[in-house]
């Protein structure tokens, strides 16, 4: 009891300025991918379709990651892959957040029956595999594109975001300061905006960073199956798929995009971990 009180009365201003290492390392990895992605807009080592070297060449000074079976520079394609991964990740997370947070907040405020219906619907949606969803969306549109990938991954992610938002919002709604806000005359939209969102935001942001990592993997999986962005969009998933046939003779064709994918996903996960620590004042103070 007394220990707890002593901690609470401790001055919250005594924060440590040191950057937690997961945030630093994660930020560095993600930052690297962002820089590369931006760079591809103005410069790549070779043109993306240029057959600049021999077929299935090993890495060399001229071709850092080697060449593919048509003699195209792999480094160029991997760099463009960063752009695709980040674009699809951003789009999918943004879409998932928009849909998910909206549904989650509505469910938290809803009456019991509506809440039960929404919760059940979310459970079904979560159980629905992203790939199946993507196939459905591709089948019902003009074919696979960046847009269908974003739509499929975003919708699949939105169910998870919605469920998390609902749980977090319900916890906030049980607090006395919500009752106090009602007594102060604040309506439900105001309560959602002033009290609920600011209090659940830190946890949601962390979740978005994790979702980003999942979206990058999902995009690679879709491209691998041919359900992602069509050529000339050099997605890592497609590079992996193309390298599969020659994985014994030219392993670098698979290893290089693999490293790119793993480094981005690990970076995003570390970044999410670091954010969680930074956002949680109790963890921050116990350091």
């Amino acid at each position, binding site marked *: 009891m007394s220990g707890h*009180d002593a901690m*609470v009365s401790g*001055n919250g201003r005594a924060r440590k300025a040191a950057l937690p290492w997961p945030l630093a390392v994660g930020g560095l990895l993600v930052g690297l991918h962002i820089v590369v992605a931006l760079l591809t807009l103005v410069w790549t080592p070779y043109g993306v379709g240029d057959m600049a070297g021999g077929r299935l060449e090993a890495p060399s000074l001229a071709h850092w990651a080697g060449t593919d079976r048509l003699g195209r520079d792999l480094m160029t394609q991997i760099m463009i892959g960063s752009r695709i991964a980040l674009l699809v990740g951003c789009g999918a997370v943004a879409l998932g957040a928009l849909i998910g947070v909206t549904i989650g907040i509505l469910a938290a405020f809803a009456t019991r029956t509506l809440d039960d219906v929404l919760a059940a619907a979310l459970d079904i949606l979560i159980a629905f595999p992203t790939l199946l969803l993507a196939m459905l969306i591709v089948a019902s549109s003009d074919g696979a594109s960046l847009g269908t990938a974003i739509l499929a991954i975003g919708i699949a992610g939105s169910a998870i975001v919605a469920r998390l938002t609902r749980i977090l919002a319900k916890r906030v709604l049980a607090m*006395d*300061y919500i009752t*106090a806000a009602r*007594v*102060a005359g604040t*309506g439900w939209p105001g309560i959602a905006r002033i009290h609920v969102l600011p*209090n659940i935001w830190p946890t949601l942001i962390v979740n978005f960073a994790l979702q980003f990592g999942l979206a990058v993997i999902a995009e690679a999986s879709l491209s691998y199956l041919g359900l992602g962005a069509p050529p000339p969009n050099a997605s890592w998933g497609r590079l992996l798929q193309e390298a599969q046939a020659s994985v014994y003779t030219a392993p670098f064709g698979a290893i290089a995009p693999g490293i790119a994918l793993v480094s981005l996903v690990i970076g995003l996960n570390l970044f999410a971990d670091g954010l969680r620590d930074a956002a949680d004042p109790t963890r921050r103070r116990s350091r």
Partner: protein
Amino acid sequence: MTLLSLSGVSFAYAAGKTVLHGIDLAVRDGGNLGIVGESGSGKTTLLKLLLGLERASAGTVSFRGAPLDARDRGFMLGFRRSVQAVFQDPYSSLDPRQRVSDIVAEPLRSLKIGTDIAEAVAQALRDVDLPPDAAGRYPHEFSGGQRQRIAIARAIVARPALIVADEVVSALDLTTRTRIIDLMRALSTRTTFVVVSHDIALVALLCERLVVLEKGRIVEEGATREILARPSHPYTQRLLASTPRMPARG
């Protein structure tokens, strides 16, 4: 003048459990009213009805003679401007992500009270003896007693006629408790308090009138002085006998 009145009010949860039976109660201007009850007495539910946070299953809750109607926004605005509240737990009753200035200003903004918000907040903080620089800080930078002062500042900022205080000192240390009670006494000159508590001594310190609630029914009501001197209901007698006292001075 009667601010709030309950006539024949009963309340049952959806599951069918009735927690209040035929409550008649009037809260008048001037002179605090205490509501004493232990767990299971229905005092929390009664408090929610008084604040218009729950709707009675039977009977009517009236504000200045007119029945409360949650759908009449204009009427509810007037009701909320007049009736504010302070809650038990000073840790969960303040939004941890808001600055004190925003916490205290919430009723002014939500109730659309046209006034200089910064000045009104500063005045409210002065009224509860908090330093002016408190406005820019966050709740976790304050102790339990100071947090309760912030909650009281939020309750008085709109200058309501009535403040419902729910177990406001039970989470506080004894010495802090005394200071908050002194503050509430000082504020009693300009607003009426309804003090809801399990602690009959606290209610006796603050209220001229009291009602004793047991198992959803009012078992005794009247002037505090009278009830303390001659408790008529066995439950009130037991409550008084159970309250531990200091040993007599030697």
